[in-house]
C-alpha cells in the first residue's frame, strides 16, 4: 500500500493544457509544410521527383498533405530551401481540396453547421474501423484516450458499437477484404453521421496507393467530414481537428 501511494505521488498530474499556446513539439517534428515558390527555379523538379508518393506538383508549387507521408525526403533535396516542414501540428481540413497547400498555405478546419453542432457539439461518440491500417494511426487514436490527452474530457469517446455511434473514424487504405465490413459499419450508424478519415492511407492510399488491393482511401461515395493528414498523425493533430470540427477551438491562422 505505501508503494501504491508513493507511485501515485510521483506520477503526478499529466494531462496537457490545450487552451494556450501551441504544444511544444521537438525541433525535428514534421508538421505543416511551408512553401515559398519564389525560391523555385522554373526548370527544377527535384522535390516532385524525389517524392515517393507523388504528393508534390510544381509550377505552381503544391504539396497534397492528404498524400504526403511527412518523410523528410523533399526538404533536403530542394536546392533552394523552398520547402520546409514547420512544427505546426494543425493539419486537419474539411475538404480534400483544402489539404493541398501552396505558397499561401492550406485552409484550416471550419466547424460543422449549427444543426450538427447543436446535436454533437457537447458529445460525440465515434466508432473506429481500421481498413488496412498498419497500426500506426490506430495507436495514436488509442493514445488520445490516455491520461495525457484525455479525449473524454471533451465529451468525445470511442464506442464499441456502430449503433451507439454518431460517426466513424476510418484508418487504412480500405482493403478489398475490409470494404464490405466498412460499408456495413457505416450503414449501421444512425443518421446524421460524421465521417473522419485519419492518416494518409485513409485519405489517399498513402504508401499503398496504386497497390491494386485497396480503394486508395475512403471510397468516394462515403462523404468525409474531416480529413486528418499524417503518417501517422500526431495525437495533437487529431485532437485539433476534432475540436475545431465541433467549434470548440476557433481562430489561429496558418500563416
Amino acid at each position, binding site marked *: 500500500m505505501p508503494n501504491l501511494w508513493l507511485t501515485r505521488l510521483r506520477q503526478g498530474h499529466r494531462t496537457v493544457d490545450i487552451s494556450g499556446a501551441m504544444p511544444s513539439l521537438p525541433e525535428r517534428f514534421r508538421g505543416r509544410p511551408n512553401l515559398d515558390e519564389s525560391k523555385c527555379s522554373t526548370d527544377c523538379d527535384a522535390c516532385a521527383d524525389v517524392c*515517393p508518393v507523388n504528393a508534390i506538383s510544381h509550377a505552381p508549387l503544391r504539396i497534397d498533405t492528404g498524400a504526403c507521408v511527412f518523410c523528410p525526403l523533399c526538404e533536403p533535396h530542394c536546392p533552394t530551401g523552398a520547402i520546409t516542414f514547420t512544427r505546426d501540428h494543425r493539419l486537419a481540413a474539411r475538404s480534400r481540396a483544402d489539404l493541398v497547400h501552396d505558397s499561401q498555405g492550406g485552409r484550416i478546419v471550419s466547424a460543422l453547421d449549427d444543426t450538427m453542432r447543436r446535436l454533437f457539439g457537447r458529445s460525440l461518440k465515434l466508432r473506429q474501423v481500421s481498413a488496412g491500417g498498419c497500426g500506426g494511426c490506430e495507436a495514436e487514436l488509442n493514445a488520445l484516450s490516455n491520461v495525457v490527452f484525455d479525449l473524454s474530457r471533451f465529451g468525445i469517446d470511442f464506442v464499441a458499437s456502430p449503433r451507439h455511434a454518431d460517426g466513424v473514424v476510418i484508418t487504412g487504405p480500405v482493403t478489398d477484404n475490409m470494404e464490405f465490413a466498412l460499408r456495413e459499419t457505416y450503414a449501421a450508424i444512425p443518421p446524421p453521421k460524421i465521417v473522419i478519415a485519419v492518416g494518409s492511407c485513409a485519405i489517399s492510399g498513402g504508401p499503398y496507393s496504386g497497390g491494386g488491393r485497396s480503394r486508395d482511401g475512403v471510397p468516394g461515395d462515403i462523404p468525409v467530414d474531416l480529413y486528418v493528414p499524417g503518417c501517422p498523425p500526431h495525437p495533437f493533430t487529431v485532437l485539433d481537428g476534432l475540436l475545431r470540427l465541433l467549434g470548440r477551438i476557433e481562430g489561429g491562422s496558418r500563416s
Partner: protein
Amino acid sequence: MDVPAPPDTAPQTSSPSITWTRNGVAVPSQSIASIDAFAFWQACLAACGQGARVVSLVASPELDDAISILGVLVDDLQGRIGLLRTRLMRDPDSRAFAYRSLTPELPQAQAFERCLLEDYGIQPIGHPWPKPLRRHDTLEKPMGSGAPARPHPFFEVRGAGVHEVAVGPVHAGIIEPGHFRFQCEGETVLHLEIQLGYQTRGAEALFLRSPDSRRLLISESVAGDTSIGHATAYCMNEEALGGSEVPLAALALRGVALELERLANHTGDLGALCGDVGYLPGASYFGRLRGEFLNLTMELSGSRVGRGMVIPGGVRFGVPLDQRAAWIARLTRVQRDLEDTANMAFASSALAARFEETGRVSHTVAEELGLVGPVARASECDRDVRRDHPRGIYRFAHVPIAIAPGGDVMARALVRWVEIQRSLTFVKEQIASLSDSPIHGAVGARTREAVCVSLVEGWRGEIAHVAVTNEVGQFTAYRIVDPSFHNWFGLTMALRDCPISDFPLCNKSFNLSYSGHDL
C-alpha cells in the same frame, strides 16, 4: 497424385543440399543447388529435427510450367541461415503444382504452405488444413462490388452443449480487424480458429514494382508499430547486396531506435494487460510512460513511431552531443517511474490471480509451432536474434536474453518487464558512448543473382526479410515475415481449455500484428 513414401532410413544428419549463410550476408543464387522435391522435404525435416526453424518458403514462378521454391531455415544454435531450393513441374493432367506437405511432421510450416497454395496454387499434399490464409475470394468477384466474400468453412466441433461464437472482423475498440471463431462447450473454449487477411494491402507485390524510396515507406508501415524493425531489415538487405559499410555511430543509433520501439510497445502492453484485468493505476501509468518512449523517438526522428529514421547506409538523425546528458537524465526518470509502477502492479494479488495459469502455451507446443519473440521466451524457448544472429551494434554490445517458465500471461508479462529493464540499460549505455563518426555511408548497386536474408529481433520477435535479385540486380522476389506470422497460431493454442472470457487478456498478452501478418 502420387506422393513418394518416406524412406526407411533415418533422414541424413547434415544435408549437403543446404547452403548455409549468416544473417545479412548475401550468397550467389547459383550456390543453392536445386534438389528434387522429396530431398527438399527430407532436408527441411532433418535440419528442423536438429533445432532449425522455418523462416520462409519463397516461390518464384519460372517459364515453361515450372515453379521454384526457396526454403529459408534458421539455425539458432550455430547462428546460421540455411537455404535450399527445389523445382516443381506442373502436373500435365491436373495443371497443378503439388508436393508433399511438411506440416504433418513440421507444424510450424503450416501457414507458409497455405501461403504458397493461395498465391501460386501449389498443393501441399497431406496438409491437414489447406485453407487460404489471406484471400477471401474477393479477387474472384468484381472489384468494389460490395458483395460479401464467400465464407470459408471453419473448423467445427459438434456435440451436445457445443456452441460457436463469432467475433469480428471489426472489434469493439481501436484495433485492427480479424475474425475469431470459437468452438465452446459452455464457457470453455475447445478450439479457436483465427481468420485473418482483412488487412491485405498487397505489400510484397507493390514492393517489387516500387522505387527504393517507396520500398522504405512500405517497410516502415507493413506493421506500423514496428517501423524501425522492418526498416532495419530492409536496409540490411540493401546494404548486404550493395556492399555498404554502415558507420558505427549509425549502428548504435539503429540499436537505440530499435530498443526505444521495444520499450514503447512493451510498456504499452503492460498497461493494456493491466487495463484488461481492471487494474487501472497500472493501465494509466504504463500508458503514460509508453508515451515517454514515443516522445523520445520523436525527438530523435521527428516521428513518434520512428518514420524516416533508418535509411539504407545508416540513419538520418543522430543525438546531438549537447543533448546526450539530458536524454540519459530523462531515461533515468522514466526508469524510476517504470520501476515504481511495475513493483506496484506485480505485487498486486488481484493482478497475479488473473495473469497466472491463464493462456498457457507449453514449451513443446511453442517449439512445434516455431514461436518467436517474448511469447516464445515466456515458454522457455531460448531464442533471440540479437544474441543468436547478431548484426549491427549487437555484435559489439549485448543485451541479456530474458526467459521465463510457465507460458502463461504472467510469464509473457514478466518477459516484457525484464526486457524493458535491459533495453533501458542498453539505450543509456549506447547514448553515453555514441561515437562522432558519420551516421550514413554509401550503398552501391545490388549484387546480381543473389539471395540475402536479414533478421532483426523486433519487439514482437524475429523479423525476416528475404531478398532475391536477378541478372541485373533487380528484386525478383521479396518476402517480409513479421513475427506475428509465426505467432498467431500460438494464440489459438493458448485459448484451448480457457474460459472464453479470458480471450481479451490472452490476445493482449500476444499483441500480434494483423497487418504484419496480412501485409
